[in-house]
């Protein structure tokens, strides 16, 4: 299908669009934090990918596509110095109907509400991160890329990926701890009864 698209078959490329558009949009949304901007970035990324299909030299087409999207989002963030789409102050005032995460899963109403609050809180925290840290965090903890894949995608050394990811996580942790009263109790980082959560299991969370 990729080979057919490389020969200029637009229908074949549109098959790839249908197959990957959810992943592409999710990545764009997590990085940009704004549905409209994510839509634009997704569409532009697919157009750019089609025009530059000749540069695809094989391997994982999804990785190549995600790299295209991430770079486009990164450029967008740097070009417009995009500010957070939502602020900490507006966290409690968001429109419930505008939250796209409510469509997933079938939890109980109380669980759904808590999860919705958490996802909104996390997303609003992510978009407060500097663009370079935000992209690395999303590629790692949302898309599940390893350090080398992130380095190839963003075009930075692995050591830089490591430090940026650590700073992003630490900053996010500090934000969550500072706003702990806004989080549902079950999602707070520190348990008030002294329980500090499950024992860390390095490498198993990926």
């Amino acid at each position, binding site marked *: 299908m990729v080979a057919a698209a490389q020969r200029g078959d*637009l229908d074949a490329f*549109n098959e790839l*669009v*249908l197959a990957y*558009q*959810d*992943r*592409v*949009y*999710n990545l764009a*949304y*997590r990085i940009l934090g704004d*549905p409209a901007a994510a*839509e634009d970035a*997704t*569409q532009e990324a*697919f*157009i750019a990918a*089609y*025009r530059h299909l000749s540069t695809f030299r094989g391997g994982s087409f999804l990785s190549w596509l995600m790299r295209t999207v991430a770079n486009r989002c990164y450029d967008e963030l740097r070009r417009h110095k995009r500010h957070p789409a939502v602020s900490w102050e507006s966290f409690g005032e968001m429109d419930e109907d505008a939250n*796209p*995460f409510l*469509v*997933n*899963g079938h939890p109980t109403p109380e669980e759904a509400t808590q*999860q919705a609050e*958490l*996802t909104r809180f*996390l*997303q609003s925290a992510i978009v407060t991160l500097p663009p370079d840290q935000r992209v690395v*965090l999303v590629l*790692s*903890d*949302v898309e*599940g890329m*390893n*350090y080398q894949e992130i380095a190839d995608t963003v075009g930075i050394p692995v050591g830089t990926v*490591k*430090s940026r*990811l*650590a*700073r992003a*996580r*630490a900053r*996010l*942790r500090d934000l*969550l*701890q500072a706003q702990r009263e806004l989080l549902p109790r079950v*999602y707070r*980082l*520190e348990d008030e009864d002294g329980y*500090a*959560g499950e*024992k*860390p299991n*390095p*490498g*198993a*969370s*990926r």
Partner: protein
Amino acid sequence: MLGRNRTQERVDEGLSAYLDGALSPRERARLEAQLAQDADLRARLESLQRTVVLVRGLPAVPAPRNFLLTPAMVRPPVPMARRLAPALTFATAVSGLLCVLLLVGNLISAGWSGPGAAAPAPMGASGEDTPEMSLMAQGEEDGDTQAAEAGAKQSPLLEMTVTPEESAPEMIWSEDVPHSLESAPPALGGGGAAGPDQGGERGTAPEPFFTGPEQSPLPTATSRPTPPMPDEATAAAVATPSPLPSPEPEATAIPVEFPGEETALPLTSWLPVGGLALMTVVLAVLSIRAWRAR
């Protein structure tokens, strides 16, 4: 303070890599030894791990619509040169039109002022005669010989001063055709009136006097006034037996052969036409290249 932050960053970097299993066995063993002894470090690791777990637990957001591409979306973008093509074409048309209009205008002016150009020349000659005569009269009346002396000092040959001094007034008067036409009869009359004084004119008194202030050494220009006024021309020619042969033949030949085809427009009138023509050609070339750009 900065050092402590830097140290904490280094600690968090190690903990983050530990969570991802990205530490070397040696680094991992050392960190685990520290974790076993340091409760704060353990708490720090646990809070970081819970943060990562929360982020990784974010639900996937489905695409709100299909992002299928259409042929119009993937059409190659129009190059900048191609986008400029209409504007360049319009500029070419405007420039060409202006060039043609200016050319026609100049030709019409030349056609109308052709006879006028012949007229003002004689009028200029007559006009120059008028001041010349008046000046000459003044010179005679005042008995002013200083001008003659000055002219003699400037050029020992009086003939040399005669022709330029005739040209200077001609150049001035020939631009104003109606005025010269209107002034012609009085000038002629003046010439006639000054007829008796022409002998005095030949006496070189007026010529040096007039050449003093505005002396333009253009012998060809001096030839123009002579044709319409053959009497004056011949008089001047006779009065000034110039050693330069060129002005005199032109003075007699040009007006006789082509009295009405002389172009009165100066060269500066044709420069804009040439400039516009050149600009039109350049714009046309640019337009063609722009339309062909891909």
